[in-house]
């Protein structure tokens, strides 16, 4: 287990180094100049050239014959290895500061979206499998299909308008009502509000989470429901389930203890894969719901060609996905005793 973990962490480090190089080259290869994007309608060739020079973007990418270290990649890597991801080209805000401030918002939303997916998707999948070809099965399948096929931004706008404006029972967007302010501890608003003894703020934060979590969780929900259904169907036809029933065990015990635990393996795998999808989906959800997370920040940076932010955001997202998948891999052993790490 220990050596497996070390190997996996070493591999993750290599992946990170590879990604840092790929993203460095990629952002500079896409057409569009950061200096021009910063100047906007004011951009003239002369003004852009002067700004490019000020920002150090006119230096060679990898090697400067006059001064080998005075090139963009060596400088970037030297800073990166000391934990400095640079600063936003226009904002001058350290990328790490932005990541620290924004990641908890995205993480809180992603966790809420996963909860929506699991708390609704798994029971729906189990019910569909147990009542195969019944109205429940058809309903679960239809909801899955709708969840997968409805664009997140469209669902988000519908939810916001219907519940936020028409019914007025939930806030249309935002992360916290303007009447509250929560000094961050973990960065998770709900948790921080409770830790700070602000129950009203915690409740308000929960209310703000509901609609974006449903929008972001719609696709994982559909996938979890489908995977749970098919995994349960597979397991329910296994001999050991039939044996359990023959022993006279109650339906509930057979389903929850014998069938579900074995059906969980593919579901957990899907959850790991969804970590990346959630970060991707966060771009649209966060924009629609004015959610102050990573997604909309990186998206804006891409349109502005803000290289340090794009690089920092992509490396960080890759790190998160790698860690989540590592945790998923490690969880297999607790679900299936036959799995051993060596």
């Amino acid at each position, binding site marked *: 287990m220990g050596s497996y973990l070390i190997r996996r962490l070493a591999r993750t480090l290599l992946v990170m180094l590879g990604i840092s190089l790929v993203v460095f080259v990629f952002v500079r290869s896409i057409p569009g100049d950061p200096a021009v994007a910063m100047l906007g309608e004011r951009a003239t060739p002369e003004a852009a050239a002067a700004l490019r020079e000020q920002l150090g973007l006119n230096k060679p990418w990898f090697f400067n014959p006059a001064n080998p270290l005075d090139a963009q990649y060596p400088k970037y890597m030297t800073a990166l290895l000391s934990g400095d991801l640079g600063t936003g080209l226009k904002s001058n805000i350290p990328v790490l500061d932005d990541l620290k401030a924004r990641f908890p918002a995205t993480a809180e939303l992603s966790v809420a979206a996963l909860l929506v997916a699991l708390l609704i998707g798994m029971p729906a999948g189990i019910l569909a499998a147990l009542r195969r070809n019944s109205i429940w099965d058809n309903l679960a399948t239809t909801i899955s299909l709708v969840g997968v096929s409805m664009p997140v931004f469209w669902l988000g706008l519908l939810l916001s308008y219907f519940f936020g404006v028409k019914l007025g029972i939930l*806030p*249309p*967007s935002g992360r916290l009502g303007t009447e509250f302010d929560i000094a961050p501890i973990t960065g998770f608003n709900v948790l921080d509000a409770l830790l700070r003894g602000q129950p009203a703020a915690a409740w308000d934060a929960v209310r703000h989470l509901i609609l974006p979590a449903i929008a972001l969780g719609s696709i994982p929900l559909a996938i979890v429901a489908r995977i749970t259904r098919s995994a349960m169907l597979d397991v329910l036809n296994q001999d050991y389930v039939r044996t359990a029933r023959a022993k006279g065990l109650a339906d509930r015990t057979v389903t929850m203890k014998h069938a579900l635990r074995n059906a969980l393996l593919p579901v957990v795998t899907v959850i790991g894969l969804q970590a990346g999808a959630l970060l991707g989906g966060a771009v649209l959800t966060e924009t629609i719901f004015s959610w102050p997370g990573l997604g909309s920040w990186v998206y804006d940076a891409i349109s502005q060609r803000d290289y340090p932010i794009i690089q920092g955001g992509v490396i960080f997202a890759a790190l998160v996905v790698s860690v989540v998948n590592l945790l998923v891999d490690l969880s297999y052993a607790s679900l299936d005793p036959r799995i051993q790490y060596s």
Partner: protein
Amino acid sequence: MKKVLLTALLATLSAASAATLVFGGNGEPVSLESGNITDGISILVQRQIYDTLVDFEDGTTDLKPGLATKWTANANNTAWTFTLRKGVRFHDGTPMNADAVVFNLSRWWDKSHPYGFRDQGRTFEIVGELLGGYKGDATAVIKNIVKVNDTTVRVDLNKPSSVLPEVLAAGYFGIASPTAIKKEGAKYGTPASKPVGTGPFIFQSWRTGDRVTLLPNKLYWGEKAKVDQLVIRSIKDASQRLNELKAGTIDFANDLTPDSLRSIQADKNLVAVKRPSFNVGFVSMNNRNQYLKNQAVRQAISMAINKKEIANAFWNGLAVSNASFLPPVLAWANSPKVPADYKFDPAAAKKMLADAGYPNGFSIDLWYMPVSRPYFPTPKPIAEAIAADLSVIGIKVNLKTEDWAKYLQDRNKEPGFDMYMIGWTGDYGDPDNFYGAYYGANASDDINWNPANVETLLQQGRAANTQAAKAKVYQQLHELTYNAAYRIPMVHSNPLAAARSYVKGWTPSPLGSEPFNTISVGSKK
């Protein structure tokens, strides 16, 4: 459980009882450091925290005293003297005086200023653009910045300029506390710092990506704020800003789309607010194109586009279309010899095209912006309407677009775009800010037309002392550019804003943002 819920309810009620004014911004500020940023929402927040030397009268581009009570030029406009308001203090208690003003102006203009933080990414590019360059540059307008005494600052110029007070009134140039800048260092203006000005609101907090919270400055020298707290929220999506307005979770907002006007008017809780127009959306034509280098062809194209109909269709009455590059508030600089409106006459345009040697028309590219701006909120359908109009006179238009950063870059690259849509929103109330930006020596090279007399006229305009003298110069420029027909003004739009009906005292400025100290929320629940 019941007790927790009750506590929560009581806390909510008591928190909500303070008079909080909530603005829905179209994003979050990039930075709160004055002189170094140009995006609209950064400037809007800065307008609450900082004062400028010279200010604008409410709802207009006319000048009024700000931190300077008086400003006078020497006989040939090569030195401006600003007399500062006495007794004004920054929010940190330090005095606003000539030292503070010289410190601010110098760090923007002098590339070697120790507190300019250029080695840590500061660029202050707006100073280079509006003031011709930085200390020591051959093109720079400013020669020297001098403290005359504790309440007087003189700015010496390399060349005559009558617009320096207007430029310094632009929202970019708020005067910040030197003590705060020295204390915060390079993090000044970021969410980790506390920006300090003399304005009507004091910075309280900036929650990244979410909101900036400000408190009223009880010692403000001007009209004091009428609310207990001002919150500026970041709501990027325009339809979501409208949703929030309708839900009552924000009190007022800018930059709504013209198609939401009817929905706002139908809601009894909302009031539609038309910001005075101070922009121009136009189509530029490139002299490098074999057809467009012909003046008659350009004029025929101009005549074939039904601009009024396009303005009606896509702006819902929130725009005017005329033959001027200048927005209506600067109409005093228009020439009486130029018709007020372009003549829409497809038959005459077709004949003109035939006379120019193209009876069967030709094929041409029209590039439209991939982003929405108040001067072109829906670029693609507008481009389609232009293409449809031009097809009537035999011109086949190929519609093209690309990523915005690349679009801005490619328009200036050889050979550039044939025809493309772009626009401009003004920084200050002088025609120079419009003509200079697109026809001046340092302007975009997208049309390949730089006649010497245009630059001469622009320099005469900048040097002219009175509005009447300026009008004479700019009228000539109007005639010249109208006849040349390289840039066809399509619209001057009124950016749409809206407020809850209890919001009183809001007078939107043509310049895009204004201090909110005049606003009250009397009957807000």
